[in-house]
């Protein structure tokens, strides 16, 4: 495996990320509700993970790789639009279905629901639970000698949940070298800056103190994301990638603005945003 992306790879990833961002905005606009800010900050990492890193099984149980698939847990379940967008792009379901997001009877629930949508490993939405779930999956895979990785995607505000740190201890205690976590460090939560609401502080030092390997990267730089994950896969202990990101990334008026945590764009805002993402 090469650890560098080619110029062509990066070009393709750029094109796909723009498409995924357009999907996210259209879905949330159409649903008249949702969480654009944290979905847009997550997109580039999800794009690299699903299209360049993970063994995925869009056909689910009927896929020959199903048991050996890598596992992905969206612990910050409110970024569901980003996950659905990348799943549709990868062929888990038809892209037309994206516009059912948050509608009555849809498989695309406001927060991911594994009983409704195949390919979602486990339901999430209530913050602070994904990392422990990841520990359980990582232990289970080790018991069966399956070499897959477990990827857990956390928000930075989510780190205020104490249960995250119960899980962080669990992972290092059990030497879960098959567990890789991301922290989407966009520095914003609903009520404002993470450092003003309840200081999350030095995330890297905190995880290192809990026995993890940690690396801080630019969460919108495809090469950095790609290299960090390949680095993490070789770790002898649980690995966290602290991805410095921009909430609302890609849409000028949404960037770094906590007001876009959980608000849908209106018709004019959508038009403006889509213009920027051409």
């Amino acid at each position: 495996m090469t650890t560098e992306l080619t110029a062509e790879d990066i070009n393709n990833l750029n094109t796909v990320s723009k498409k995924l961002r357009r999907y996210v905005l259209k879905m949330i606009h159409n649903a008249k509700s949702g969480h654009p800010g944290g979905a847009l900050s997550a997109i580039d990492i999800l794009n690299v993970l699903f299209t360049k890193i993970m063994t995925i099984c869009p056909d689910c149980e009927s896929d020959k790789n199903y048991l050996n698939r890598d596992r992905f847990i969206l612990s910050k379940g409110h970024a569901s639009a980003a996950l659905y967008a990348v799943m549709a792009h990868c062929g888990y379901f038809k892209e037309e279905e994206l516009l059912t997001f948050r509608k009555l009877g849809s498989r695309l629930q406001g927060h991911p629901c594994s009983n409704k949508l195949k390919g979602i490993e486990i339901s999430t939405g209530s913050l602070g639970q994904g990392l422990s779930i990841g520990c359980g999956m990582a232990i289970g895979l080790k018991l069966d000698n399956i070499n897959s990785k477990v990827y857990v995607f956390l928000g930075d505000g989510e780190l205020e949940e104490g249960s995250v740190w119960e899980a962080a201890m669990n992972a290092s205690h059990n030497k879960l070298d098959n567990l890789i976590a991301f922290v989407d460090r966009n520095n914003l939560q609903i009520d404002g800056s993470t450092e003003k609401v309840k200081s999350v502080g030095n995330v890297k030092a905190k995880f290192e103190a809990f026995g993890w390997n940690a690396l801080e990267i630019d969460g919108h730089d495809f090469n950095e994301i790609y290299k960090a994950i390949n680095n993490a896969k070789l770790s002898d202990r649980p690995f966290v990638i602290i991805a410095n990101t921009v909430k609302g990334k890609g849409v000028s008026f949404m960037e770094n603005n906590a007001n876009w945590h959980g608000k849908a764009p209106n018709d004019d805002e959508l038009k403006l945003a889509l213009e920027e993402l051409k």
Partner: protein
Amino acid sequence: MERECKSVRSAYGKTLVELGRKNKNIVVLDADLSCSTQTKLFAKEFPERFFNVGIAEQDLMTTAAGLACTGKIPFVSTFAMFATGRAWEQIRNTICYSNLNVKIAATHAGITVGEDGASHQALEDISLMRSIPNMLIIVPADEKETIEAVKFAASYNGPVYIRIARTNLPDIFDNTYSFNYKKAIKLKDGSDVTLITNGETLVETIDCVKILSENGINSEIIHVPVIKPIDAETIINSVKKTNRVVTIENHSIIGGLGSCVCELLSEIYPAKVTRIGTKDEFGQSGQAKELLDFYGLTAKKLAEKIIGIIK
């Protein structure tokens, strides 16, 4: 009356070992109470399949959920207070919402926790578990039933809550007993009143019935090992005969077996129900037997109360 009592917790631990020998997918998790819950028996024989997450009940439940996602059958144990209270939301949003194959076998439920007092006496656990969709709830009454309930849980696909007593209990069922999660058990026919109970209060109810009989009250006993899904048919058929119901439980009368029976009857066959359990109050320290007496759950106290309301 004195009779041989057996540790149902020990029966739980031994059954886990037996299941573990037959099925390598059985895994066990505990939160620093493996001596009290008796999961230490499994830990000793299968250390590679036992996970002590430390004093971290939220991590306990969600780690079990992750294990279930990989095809394991996790049995999770700690005290009922912390299993259902501290980690309620993990059980609700992660285990039950995803309908995962996690078995929560909680010990030290009810007032009979004893000397540790109110902070450790879960009087709300059934109530908390009963309101979550997909959860199946078992409250076994003796050693044999505990063993069968645990074996059933391992074979059933979906979340299960098993409430295991701290106290040692006398045998009620013999080797012919077979567990059917869809059936309540009529242990005695009667015509004057239907007594509905489960768990530790079944033996008190059986003894109480003898006192009632001496006082001319012919009571029917319905044992409900599975509170959810409840066997409506057996209960309603009994009440159609007696038209008078008393529920008896080592739990708050809010949200437990008594509530469950009231909900059922009020919609299908309204009848007068008296709920005996702890009231809207916390417990306190004391010996298990003293506490049962104080809260009116011994055979003698039950009989006094029932005679008072029937006659």
